[in-house]
């Protein structure tokens, strides 16, 4: 893994970003955590149906990977996408409303947790299909190149997705056409119950980069500064027309894969060990250690996030359900007779 400290011993993120930017990043990490805790609680209380995939424990990867992106830059996300969505600047109320299946939600209640998207902020969407976002990200990068927008696409995917054909085809095309895309693998060690040891022929997912002639780097995905350092470099490379890169953020999901997971494929000790490496606590410590924020400010940021989530839940609860008569709206741009 990369050294995350600059020569003068200041972590990369501290040197690169302003205090405001760093505090905003911490806030986003809290928002992700609290959004998902709220979602989980709503599920337990029977307020929502379906399933959900929580990224609690992976917040540094989501937020760190989006630090140097603007609203013009794109991301593609995954089934475990709430964090990416928040990191790319989504409105928490509309996210919660979607979760509750309301017309005021991001997908007007049609998509739910697994399909939240916010194209206005460059988020091309979560995805229910493992690996589904990879070629789409390459397409977005192709547009940026042809249209000369200067935009970069960050493509999030999991370790499990690296065994889909779509992964290999996407990386190859991105490389051959030298497209401005950064492939960010969130390696949380398992695709559902199957560990990378049992599913994947290489030790690090980043090793796959060699096959597609692009740089590949593995970093501690719970270390915000390490993530930003690696992804920022890849984004810059892409923006300069030098082509794609692969960054692997090693992290861990604290919760089960989805609501039906009995966690029989991993030990309590392993989960506890990773919980002791909380990316949010580490980020708060980074900011206090470097006098970016006081402990009181950190507490204030957390309280702010809590309040925003409470308001979001209230907004979602009050929202109207979609109308049944409108269920076939938006299948096509113009309504067609079937």
């Amino acid at each position, binding site marked *: 893994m990369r050294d995350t400290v600059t020569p003068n011993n200041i972590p990369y993120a501290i040197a690169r970003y302003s205090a405001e930017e760093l505090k905003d990043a911490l806030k986003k990490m809290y928002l992700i955590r609290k959004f998902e805790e709220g979602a989980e609680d709503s599920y337990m209380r029977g307020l929502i149906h379906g399933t959900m995939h929580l990224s609690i424990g992976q917040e540094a990867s989501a937020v760190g990977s989006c630090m140097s992106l603007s609203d013009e830059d794109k991301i593609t996300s995954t089934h475990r996408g709430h964090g990416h969505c928040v990191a790319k600047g989504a409105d928490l109320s509309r996210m919660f409303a*979607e979760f509750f299946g309301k017309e005021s939600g991001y997908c007007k209640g049609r*998509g739910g947790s697994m399909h939240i998207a916010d194209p206005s902020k460059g988020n091309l969407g979560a995805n229910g299909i*493992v690996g589904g976002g990879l070629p789409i990200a390459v397409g977005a990068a192709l547009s940026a190149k042809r249209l000369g927008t200067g935009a970069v696409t960050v493509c999030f995917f999991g370790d499990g997705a690296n065994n889909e*054909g779509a992964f290999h085809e996407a990386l190859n095309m991105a490389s051959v056409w030298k497209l401005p895309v950064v492939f960010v693998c969130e390696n949380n060690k398992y695709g559902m*119950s*199957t560990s990378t040891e049992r599913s994947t022929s290489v030790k690090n997912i980043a090793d796959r980069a060699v096959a597609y002639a692009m740089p590949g780097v593995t970093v501690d995905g719970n270390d915000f500064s390490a993530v930003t350092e690696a992804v920022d470099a890849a984004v810059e490379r892409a923006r300069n027309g030098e082509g794609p890169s692969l960054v692997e953020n090693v992290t861990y999901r604290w919760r089960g894969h989805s609501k039906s997971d*009995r966690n029989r494929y991993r030990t309590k000790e392993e989960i506890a060990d990773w919980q002791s490496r909380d990316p949010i606590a580490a980020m708060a410590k980074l900011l206090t250690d470097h006098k970016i924020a006081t402990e009181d400010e950190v507490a204030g940021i957390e309280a702010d996030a809590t309040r925003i989530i409470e308001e979001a839940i209230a907004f979602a609860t009050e929202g109207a359900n979609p109308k049944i008569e409108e269920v076939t709206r938006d*299948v096509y741009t113009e309504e067609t007779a079937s």
Partner: protein
Amino acid sequence: MNMHSKTDLRELSYAEAIREAMDIAMARDERVILMGEDIGVYGGAFGVTGELVEKYGTDRVMDTPISELGGAGVAVGAAMTGLRPIFEFQFSDFATLGMEQIVNQAAKIRYMLGGAVSVPVVMRFPSGSGTGAAAQHSQSLEAWTAHVPGLKVVQPATPADAKGLLLAALEDPDPVMIYEHKILYKMKGHVPEGYYTTPIGKAAVMREGKDLTIIATSIMVHKALDAAQTLAAEGIDAEVIDLRTIRPMDRDTVLTSVRKTGRLVCVYEAVKTLGVGAEVSAMVAESDAFDYLDAPIIRLGGAECPIPYNPELEKAVVPQVPDILEAARNLAKGRV
């Protein structure tokens, strides 16, 4: 939902019945292996494989990487060369990633090679809506594979048929696609003990009636039976047929029933147009049974849209018991 079975008969859930079939098959035939995502220690996304990995080990209950195209293809290759793989797509929606191997390879190899090779592969597709999993996890795509000569396609509606059709599929020398409905997995019903097969290509008359025929598939069989009870109380005597196999379709059973009742409703969860209902209707229209029809045929199928997330919308886009009742009443009263 409960099958109306006598209490002294052994009951299993639909998922348990499938597991029992796999267990029996694996115990009697070393060539049978299971492949799929998270079917080992996880027990399958819907718990269908359960504890089988503990009994047969990871060599015969194989967790594949998340590689549907490759996984399906490995199953095809293994089936061509001596093994009897049962391949589970975690959700039928993900079979779209494996379509190449299903449609271009499994379905055609025997024919293309002039009959020199068989592909005795069995694939299982957990399908359907009702779980709040939205557009990419709720589809009913059985008509896709049923459109391809070389494949056999079944849709068990009861625990007993889920077991019998799986064992029949394993005996079959050709590729058999089994579409299971996720909502049925927990449904209980009588399942005979031991080894038996349910014939592929044979529909089942679930309820005899004289006034109209309701042809249903999968979960809709139960909705049709519910509706038939209500209709009986109103003096409308509906015959309910579980199609069970959609390729090859049981022409005789369908046409015999329509000749008897002269009225036909066809109900299935998949999108209404260009699917099972079109085929059943055309089969009737192209035969002498057409002359027996006293009313136009009614198809009840899914709305022309993806499955939405909101629970009320989700319910609204697939046929429900009141929809069947309305169609049947209108037919019986000659209102269509």
